[in-house]
């Protein structure tokens, strides 16, 4: 595992990231950093480029241009992949898309980085033991009647998000990316997820938190970064704006965009 040195300023820094799909620029020069123990909220309208940026950071997509630094060291983007991102200590909780429905939890915890022998056969017992530990540590799973053999489709939305977050915590990530983790959740479940974001902060890790609901992100983020039409347009430190001000800022952006498009 190449986790690099422990002396670093930024858990993640992206410089001049561009992503073009043909003639369409999804990202047109994004500079973004996430400090060592910082919770950064990323907000923006649908289609602003949030998901594309997440996919680039997590190794799913390769950017057209730009560079990526993990713990202040540049990453070779030509060899970057989901597996590399994991090795660099970056874990992601995708909006409702982190788990496969028909598979048991123990497979979902380790898929993509199974514990295997040299021939590639999975050590099921070891994986189940570790999965059990993750379950016990995850939010709200003590005695909930859920075991490592439970199939994901038998879980509620909140339970699924808890599992995905528990998985991210287990792998000792320095940076956890949350891509709209509250999108499909009820009120109680949302507060659990927000508690978890606080846990990330207190455990000394960093988090990039993509969120639609401004009140949620405003409550937990140290800094909020606003992305619009493929580029960062504003950064707000904690306390600089109220939720209402933030909301009107985003509405203004939307109006501007509509004017520009008209």
């Amino acid at each position: 595992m190449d986790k690099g040195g422990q002396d670093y300023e930024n858990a993640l820094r992206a410089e001049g990231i561009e992503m073009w799909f043909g003639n369409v620029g999804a990202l047109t020069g994004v500079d973004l950093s996430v400090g060592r123990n910082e919770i950064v909220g990323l907000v923006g309208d649908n289609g602003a480029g949030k998901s594309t940026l997440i996919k680039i950071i997590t190794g799913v997509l390769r950017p057209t241009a730009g560079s990526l630094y993990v713990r202040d060291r540049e990453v070779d983007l030509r060899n970057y992949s989901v597996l590399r991102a994991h090795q660099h200590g970056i874990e992601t909780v995708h909006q409702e898309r982190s788990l496969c429905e028909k598979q048991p939890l123990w497979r979902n915890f380790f898929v993509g980085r199974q514990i295997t022998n040299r021939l590639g056969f999975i050590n099921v017992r070891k994986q189940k033991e570790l999965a059990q530990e993750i379950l016990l540590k995850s939010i709200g799973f003590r005695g909930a009647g859920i075991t490592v053999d439970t199939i994901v489709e038998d879980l509620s939305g909140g339970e699924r998000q808890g599992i995905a977050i528990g998985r991210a915590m287990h792998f000792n990530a320095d940076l956890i990316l949350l891509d709209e983790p509250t999108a499909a959740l009820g009120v109680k479940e949302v507060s659990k997820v927000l508690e978890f974001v606080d846990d990330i902060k207190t455990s000394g890790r960093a988090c990039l938190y993509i969120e639609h609901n401004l009140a949620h992100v405003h409550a937990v983020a140290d800094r909020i970064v606003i992305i619009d039409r493929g580029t960062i347009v504003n950064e707000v430190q904690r306390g600089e704006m109220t939720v209402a001000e933030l909301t009107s800022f985003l509405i203004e952006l939307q109006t501007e965009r509509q004017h520009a498009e008209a």
Partner: protein
Amino acid sequence: MPKPELKTHQTLWTRVEGLPIVLAFLVVIGAFMITAPESFLGYRMYTTLGSTVVPPLILGLGLTLVIAAGEIDLSFPSVLKVSSLVFVMITKFGVFPLDEDMADKHDLLVWGAFVLALLVGGLIGFLNGLLVVRIGIPSIIATLATLFVWEGATVISSGGLSHNIRDIKEYVIFDVLTGRIGPVPVQFFWAIALAALMWFILNRHRFGEHLLFIGDNANVARVVGVRVDREKIKLFTLMGVLGALSGVMLTLENKNFFTTQGTGFLLVALAAVFIGGTSITGGKGSIVGTVFGSFIVGTVEAGVVGSGISGFWTRLVVGLVFIAAVTFHLTVEKPKGFAGVRRIAGMGGRGPEEGPERPRDTRPP
């Protein structure tokens, strides 16, 4: 620290893989023992089954993985033909000694022909994979096209003729792959060994787990780090190799090659997989089910004739068993199975997203 106890909430039905289909197989055998005792109480019937079931069974094993990964391969009958032809041409024209006294046997060359046939099958499978992954043709269309292409290629290059390779029985490969141990055909043991290997690949190997996740939800598989494209190409290549193996075994058993061989396996092998309980929606596959599904299809085909009914009835009976088996899977393995039965009756299938039996949907928000 005491080890955490691993509890399971599974029922007997879901814990023992393929249990319903094993029972169904026993029922079928039992029924034929009553209706056709003279065939099914003697060992000869089982000797025959042990050899005839094997080629479609091998195909079904590969198809189980393909379908579990949410794909389909229809080209395997033609892969079988091409590979068989490669094997036959090399042995007949390149290996067999011209004089009759067999002084100059080339066992090694025959094995070489066997390996080459497997490679050709793998190559065709690899090309299928490229069509699906790189060009993006849905697998049902791509492999339907290659089904035609390779069958055509076989007919052209063989001139539509059959080739007998009777002399093959003098060579070691014949005994090793298709000989008899007492009354039991050797290929039966090979099929069981292969089934065990495929079970471990699907259920215990990294590759199999990746296939299950791809079949379940390819987007999730991608973001959790599965290299979806690469795994799919490997999958189609494997299917090609298995098609070739099936073809060589069939050719050795018949000691003959004919251009229509394997054509009939298309629907039989697919039926065996679905009778065995593998779901078309992907994400799940049952090797045990496929093994017994293959034997059910083979037994019904033999047993209908043995019962004194006209052979014309075999297809009809297989179809009825097919429907009964799939219905049985739905009622036994799904918590609210009858909802599934009603859907089948009403709509002819159920989509992956709308199953009413999911607890998630019945919970209050």
